[in-house]
């Protein structure tokens, strides 16, 4: 593999880190190191410049006020948009996902987003809180997804993005689809440890970052993550009966 040290930027933990979002960084670092890839995690606060040279960018969820502030600072900084254009993998969660679109709703009004993904978000009729599951877009090759969602927004996808998954339980974007992807950018409402429950999604991002195919990554012993996935899917089945 081309990269020996993977630089992963975690954006704005001071503003957007509500639901254990650091977990995604920990999971990526764990899975990279287990394959002998060194990881240099870089936590970038909202009053710091975003490095252009990183290999992957993560952005988490948060409350309305911090979300609006984060969008404003990201627009001013410009580095995240350039990273997307350069094909760097970006994983955005919840509020961070919404602000990658053209507009989002916070503090009772619409805000301009970064326009990295062709989508827009507004307020839903009720808060979506609970387990979420779905079948990921077949082209991603990651199978079913499982996570936990907690958001008041609804997201409407444009032509230039694909849904991350078709929803089988929970709400996601609108009750039918969940998340979005285009190029190497993925947005999702699965918060916090989404990658802990979806190791194949983590590996897809890692493969993109190191410029390889996920199948080329050495396999890991995923006994515990697989058991967790099984339990969560089973719990949803039990609840549906």
């Amino acid at each position, binding site marked *: 593999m081309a990269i020996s040290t993977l630089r992963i930027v975690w954006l704005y933990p001071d*503003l957007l880190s*509500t*639901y*254990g979002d*650091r977990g995604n960084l920990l999971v990526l670092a764990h899975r990279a190191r287990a394959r002998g890839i060194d990881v240099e995690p870089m936590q970038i606060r909202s009053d710091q410049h975003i490095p252009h040279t990183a290999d992957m960018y993560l952005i988490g969820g948060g409350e309305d006020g911090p979300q609006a502030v984060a969008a404003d600072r990201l627009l001013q900084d410009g580095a995240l948009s350039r990273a997307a254009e350069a094909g760097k993998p970006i994983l955005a969660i919840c509020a961070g996902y919404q602000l990658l679109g053209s507009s989002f709703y916070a503090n009772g009004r619409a805000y301009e987003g970064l326009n990295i993904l062709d989508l827009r978000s507004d307020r839903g009729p009720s808060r979506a809180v609970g387990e979420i599951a779905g079948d990921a877009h077949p082209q991603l090759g990651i199978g079913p997804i499982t996570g936990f969602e907690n958001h008041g927004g609804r997201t409407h996808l444009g032509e230039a993005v694909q849904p991350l998954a078709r929803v089988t339980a929970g709400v996601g974007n609108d009750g039918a689809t969940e998340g979005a992807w285009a190029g190497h950018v993925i947005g999702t409402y699965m918060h916090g440890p989404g990658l802990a429950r979806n190791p194949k999604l983590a590996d897809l991002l890692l493969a993109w970052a190191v410029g390889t195919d996920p199948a080329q990554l050495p396999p890991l012993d995923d006994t515990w*993550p697989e*058991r967790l996935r099984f339990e969560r899917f089973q719990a949803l089945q039990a609840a549906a009966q």
Partner: protein
Amino acid sequence: MSANLTPRAKFATTLLRTAAALSRATGRGDGSVIGGRVGLIVEPRLLELLAEGRHVVLISGTNGKTTTTRFTTAALEAIGKVATNSFGANMPTGHTTALAKAPKAEYAALECDEHYLGQLLDAANPKVVALLNLSRDQLDRAMEVTALAAKWRQTLQASGAQSTIVANADDPLIVWAASVCPRVVWVAAGQSWTADSAICPNCGAHLDRFGEFWRCTNCGLNRPSPQWSVAHQGEAVVGPDGRRYDLNLQLPGRVNRANAATALAVASLFGVDPAQAAPRLSEVASVAGRYAKVERDGRHLRLLLAKNPAGWLESFDMIDPVPPVVLSLNAREVDGFDTSWIYDVDFTSLAGRKVVVTGDRRTDLAVRLEVDGVDFLVVDDIRAAIAAVPPGPVEVVANYTAFQDIRAEFNRVN
């Protein structure tokens, strides 16, 4: 006190006690909640009427409120009888029951759920309100923590002027909420979890931190100078005049020394000499099972309750470095269904010791520990956990219902 209760309130009180006793007799808990509910239906102003004429302190915050209430009760008992909701029923129904059960108590120390502070301020007309800390808790249903601080600030502005506030100078959210009140006594109670106050609750700018000091670079909100603090060396609390009060607590950890400092600050506002109160705190050995020591088959377990990231980090600070650790995690309704907060907890300090995980969501813990490089063993329940560790001391950390399950295994130890 209840001497001048209206006939209606007296009737409501009698019904409350009957309902509570029935609930206890039929094995449905201690009856605090059902009793209070019955009483408040008959006389909606019952809490207010029962609180009238008593000297009340309310104690609230995300973590440490049950222990601080217990410490405060122990301190106030130096000068009189104290009504207290010692069963952790910390909503108005529980407060009503606590007061109804102790008609002769001149003082009341009431632990208050964060969301009911406003209602209690109006109903109980407290002399003192102690505000400990605010951090993320039960993410899937609780109000976001900054919004809760804003609600407190509004509530205190409207109804807090009659009370003296005892507040944690180390928690920016608490300082922001409490600083609207005319009389505040500041306690350096520490902050084990800073992630929810990286930015200024007042204006959204960054907070600068240097050591224990913090300030907002934009609006000037900053750490007030505390009158009470935990001594840097040794087990002691330092009071407003610089005098040291030695502690000899049975409860472990820096966080409990801070809870003791808050309790002494509160008690001194009621006229209790801290030198007289401090030894009383060391008599507290456990609080509703928290910190209780139990024995089975030569294993000496210490039970620690930790409900949220701040609580887990505090527990890891309390436990002895060598013995095996049992971690138990549930995600039932009162725990919150969302377990993602375990990724806000750093488990790396457990590496190198024996770690056993159990509880409904033990698999979530297993995945979490694997990510942090901590070796672990997964077992079905606390019995299996005990069997899996050698005789000797064992530290047990569990969240709310997981803790209650373990307590039940030990005859609901207090």
